[in-house]
C-alpha cells in the first residue's frame, strides 16, 4: 500500500501535467478508475489561479482580451505555480513572464502595464504609515536640508517605462477615455503610493524617478538631488519634493543620526 507521501506525490505530479494519466488508486463509487473525477481537481487548480491573476491584472486582460489572457495566464500558472499559500503575493513575476511570452511580443509596453498593476497590488496590501504633511520641511534651513534622509512610505513603488505605459494603464482601468497612443512618445515613470485608504498612481516629473530611487537607497536629499540632476538637467528639487509630499509618499525624515521625526 502506498504511504500518504507517495499518494500525494503522484497526485501532485498528475495535477501539474495536463497530459499525465490519472494516478492509480483513484476510483469512483463503481470502484473503477475515475479520470473525470480527478479532472475536477486539475480544473479547480488552474481556474482558481487564473482567476487570481485576472483579479490582479485587469488592465493587462482588457488590453489583450479575455481569451488571450486566459491562455497566457494558464501558461504562467504551469511555468511558475505559486510557492506560497498567500495568493496576494502571486504574480510577482508575471510581468517578466509576459516580457518573454512570444505571442505578446507585438505589445512591447505590456510588461510595463503589468508592472504597474503589480505595484498597485503591493501598495494596496503594504504596511500602513502616516505620511508627512505639507509643513514637513518648514523651518529647516537650506544648509541642513541637503543632509536629510527621508523615510519613504512603505507602500511606495516606482515603475519606469520607455513607453507611455501609465497612460495606457489609465485607459484600461477606466480612469481616462481610451484613445490613440503614440508609442514613440517619451516614456513615463509612474509613482504608486497608498498614503491612506486609496492607492494613487501618478507620473513623476523629469529626473523624479532617479531622485526617488536614490532616496530609496537611503541617500541624503542632497546626494539624491545630485543623482537626479546628473540624469536629467531639468530636474527641479523643490517641485519634486513638493510633489512627493503632496502624494503622501514621505513617511518620515531624519535630520541626523540623533534625531528621528515621524
Amino acid at each position, binding site marked *: 500500500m502506498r504511504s500518504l507521501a507517495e*499518494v500525494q*506525490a503522484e497526485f501532485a505530479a498528475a495535477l501539474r501535467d495536463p497530459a499525465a494519466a490519472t494516478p492509480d*488508486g483513484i476510483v469512483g463509487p463503481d470502484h473503477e478508475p*475515475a479520470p473525470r473525477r480527478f479532472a475536477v481537481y486539475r480544473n479547480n487548480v488552474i481556474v482558481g489561479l487564473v482567476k487570481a491573476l485576472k483579479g490582479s491584472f485587469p488592465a493587462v486582460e482588457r488590453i489583450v482580451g479575455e481569451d488571450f489572457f486566459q491562455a497566457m495566464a494558464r501558461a504562467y500558472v504551469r511555468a511558475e505555480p505559486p510557492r506560497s499559500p498567500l495568493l496576494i503575493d502571486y504574480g510577482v513575476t508575471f510581468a517578466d513572464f509576459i516580457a518573454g511570452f512570444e505571442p505578446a511580443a507585438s505589445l512591447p509596453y505590456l510588461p510595463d502595464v503589468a508592472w504597474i498593476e503589480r505595484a498597485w497590488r503591493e501598495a494596496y496590501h503594504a504596511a500602513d504609515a502616516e505620511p508627512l504633511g505639507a509643513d514637513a520641511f518648514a523651518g529647516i534651513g537650506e544648509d541642513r536640508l541637503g543632509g536629510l534622509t527621508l523615510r519613504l512610505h512603505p507602500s511606495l513603488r516606482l515603475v519606469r517605462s520607455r513607453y507611455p505605459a501609465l497612460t495606457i494603464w489609465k485607459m484600461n482601468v477606466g480612469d481616462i477615455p481610451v484613445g490613440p497612443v503614440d508609442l514613440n512618445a517619451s516614456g513615463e515613470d509612474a509613482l504608486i503610493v497608498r498614503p491612506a485608504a486609496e492607492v494613487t498612481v501618478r507620473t513623476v516629473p523629469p529626473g523624479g524617478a532617479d531622485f526617488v530611487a536614490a532616496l530609496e537607497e537611503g541617500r541624503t536629499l542632497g546626494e539624491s538631488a545630485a543623482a537626479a540632476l546628473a540624469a536629467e538637467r531639468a530636474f527641479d528639487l523643490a517641485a519634486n519634493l513638493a510633489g512627493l509630499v503632496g502624494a503622501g509618499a514621505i513617511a518620515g525624515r531624519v535630520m541626523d543620526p540623533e534625531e528621528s521625526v515621524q
Partner: protein
Amino acid sequence: MTMQPQAIPSRAGVGLKPEHHQAIIETGPDIGWFEIHAENYMGAGGPPHRRLAEIRERYPISLHGVGLSIGAARPIDRDHLQRLKQLNERYRPGLFSEHLAWSTHDSIFFNDLLPVPYTEDSVARVSEHIDQVQETVGRRMLLENPSTYLTFVESTMGEIDFLTEVARRTGCGLLLDVNNVHVSATNQQTDAISYLDAFPMELVGEIHLAGYAPEDDGKGAPLLIDAHDRPIDPYVWGLYEHTIARAGPVPTLVEWDNDVPEWPVLFAEAQRADAVLARAQEARERELVAVAG
C-alpha cells in the same frame, strides 16, 4: 487596539466579502457574525484590514483558514502558521477552523482543497499537524469535513471514523459542512441522512452551508462540485434542518464566494438559517420548561 475575544452566537453568519462592506456598515444588519478567510488578511496593512477592523468593532468574527495544508504528509509551513497565530492575536476571533485537506506539495501551492486517503497513516499525520496548530496558536481549532469527488483504494476507514479519531487524539472540534455532506454523499453514492445521523454532533462547533454546481462524472452519474456560487439547494436546507434537529442550535455560516450576489440576497439566506436556529432554540426552551415542570 486590544480586543476581547467575542464568542460566536448560535445564530447565522455569512462569509465576509469586500463587495458587501459598504452595505453592512450603512445598514447595520441584524446578523450574528461574519467569517473571514485568513489568507485574505495576511497582507501587512491597507484596505482589507481597515474594513475588517470596522466590521470587528460591530460583530463577532470567525477565522477560517484555507491554505494550511493540514492533510499533507509534509510538515506544516511554520511561516504560515505564524501568520495564522498573528491574525488570531490581532482580531481575537470567536472560532478558528481549517480543512481536512492538503494544498501544498514540494513547496507548490495548488490553491485547492485536495482529498486525503482515510488511513491510519493519515490519521497520524493530520493529528500531529493539528497538535502543532493548536499548540502554536494557543487555542482549539475546528476541522472541516471535505467535499470529495473521488475515493482512494488505500482508504481503510470511513470519513466519520477518521474525523472522530482525529478529534479524540487532538481535542479539536469539528466544523460540519452540510453542503459538503450532500456533495460527497452524492458523488460517492452514499446516504447523506445516514452520515448526519452518525456524525458526532457533540463535537460540532460550527456548521457551513453553501451552493453547489451539478455536473456528471462522464458515466451517467451525478458529480456535484462545491462551487459556492449560488443559493443553497433546497435539499441541503432539508439536511440542515435535520442536522439542527439532532444537534440543537449551532453557529451556522452561509458561504458564497463566487458570482457573489448583492448583499440583500446573501443576507436573506442567513435569515433563513437564523429562522431554523430560532425554532430549534424555542424547542429547546420548551423542553427545559417541560422538564422543570
